[in-house]
């Protein structure tokens, strides 16, 4: 008797929906996205799922598998042997249809971040020590799984108070750049809502690119905000220097 996969997929739209079960034949090495494609081809052609590269590079296929934010194309089904695999859309964002969510809020946030402002015109020389630090942030594929798991956005409806971990990484990428002369610390302390983050590291745990979001982006940025706004001795010296 062949072994099958029991898939439970959330079907619906902004007005509501429910999980629908499917039996999918198993193939070695199969990922969740393969199973959803099988459902599309053999049972429900109108099942909506966003995907593109199927190689964990485009960041399109973010969803929640058994409650965990995951890339559907990188999540193997043999990790769930013997379990019902429940696939739901990312809870932080409004549903468009089935597993497809409206992530456009993220692009509105991105527009609020001042881009790189190099002190010297490109091409400029950067040494590896400086490049390595920001290269980690370049690995981000904008899958928004970190935004999905961030409890400020997800549980506390904080989209008007906090930009979310993805954009802390983006700001860190510019702010720690060796030739950037921009100043995004006031933005961090105010509109970006950095201190809404309580460093509980869920974003780091779910990042499929293994970016150490909290340790290498959020906490160093928090320390920069402390330098500017909370450190009494640095504030005193700054005032004495007339800055």
């Amino acid at each position: 008797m062949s072994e099958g996969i029991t898939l439970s997929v959330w079907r619906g739209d902004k007005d509501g929906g429910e999980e629908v079960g499917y039996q999918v034949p198993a193939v070695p090495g199969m990922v969740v996205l393969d199973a959803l494609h099988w459902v599309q081809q053999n049972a429900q052609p109108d099942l909506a799922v966003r995907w593109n590269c199927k190689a964990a590079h485009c960041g399109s296929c973010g969803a929640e598998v058994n409650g965990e934010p995951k890339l559907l194309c990188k999540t193997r089904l043999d990790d769930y042997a013997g379990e019902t695999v429940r696939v739901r859309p990312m809870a932080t964002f409004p549903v468009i249809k089935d597993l497809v969510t409206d992530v456009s809020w993220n692009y509105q946030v991105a527009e609020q971040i001042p881009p790189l402002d190099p002190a010297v015109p490109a091409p400029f020389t950067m040494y590896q020590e400086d490049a390595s630090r920001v290269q980690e942030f370049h690995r981000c594929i904008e899958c928004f799984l970190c935004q999905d798991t961030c409890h400020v956005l997800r549980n506390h409806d904080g989209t008007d108070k906090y930009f979310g971990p993805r954009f802390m990484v983006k700001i860190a990428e510019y702010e720690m750049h060796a030739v950037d002369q921009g100043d995004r610390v006031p933005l961090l302390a105010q509109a970006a809502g950095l201190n809404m983050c309580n460093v509980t590291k869920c974003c780091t745990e779910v990042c499929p690119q293994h970016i150490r979001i909290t340790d290498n982006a959020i906490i160093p940025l928090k320390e920069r905000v402390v330098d500017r706004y909370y450190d009494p001795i640095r504030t005193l010296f700054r005032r004495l220097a007339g800055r």
Partner: protein
Amino acid sequence: MAQPVSSGTTRPAARRKKMPYWVEPLTTLVVLGTWLLYSLWEVLFHNTGTYHNYISPYFSPGIAGWFGWHILTALYVAWVPFLFRFTCYYYRKEYYRGFFWDPPGCAAADAPRKRYSGETKWPLKINNLHRYAWFLALIVLLFLWKDAVEAFIFPHHGFEVRVGSLILLVNVVLLTFYTFSCHAFRHMVGGRRDCFSCGGKPSQSYRFWSRVSRWNAFHGAWAWASLFSVWAADLYVRLLLMGVIHDARLF
């Protein structure tokens, strides 16, 4: 033809069976809560932590003795390491998850607390001053090193190695790693710079920052290890003082 889900090979990155999301925060709650209760018992109900040449980390440095105070002598110093740990970025993760349930686990479906302001309001705003707690903790650490050295020099016997000596030494080593892997320290030694090589070669601050960054990757491990070592060191001295155990000489 359909085939078994498992390919029969073990993948190194195979997903672990996950425990329910509440197991980890509940464990934190129980362990940190027990440690807090033990610490309160130690600080509020004992006036000495000195047994011959051993000094419990809760009672060092003996500030109260410098001024001739004899009540709650641990209280004058124990707040420093407590403040350091309370404001520590790693412990913040642990207690926000374990004590505040904010969040209990990643993507957990619990109903959220109604009011949440992160670290934007007092008293949690105090966490922004972690660097000052670090400086205070550094002073205490220096005294603990002095205590660790003195734990090997016994009155009338000279240099000896006993179980207590090793416990105090291991404790101060773990505390040193915990202190110098701190995120705020990492920022102070070089993290606040944008350019490490603008002079044409890696700066000294880059070397410091790189080293601290390597230690910082294990900050959580140092945090737990040093918490248990402080606990063990204090309990050992306390049991010696109570006459429950005897200090064994190794060589």
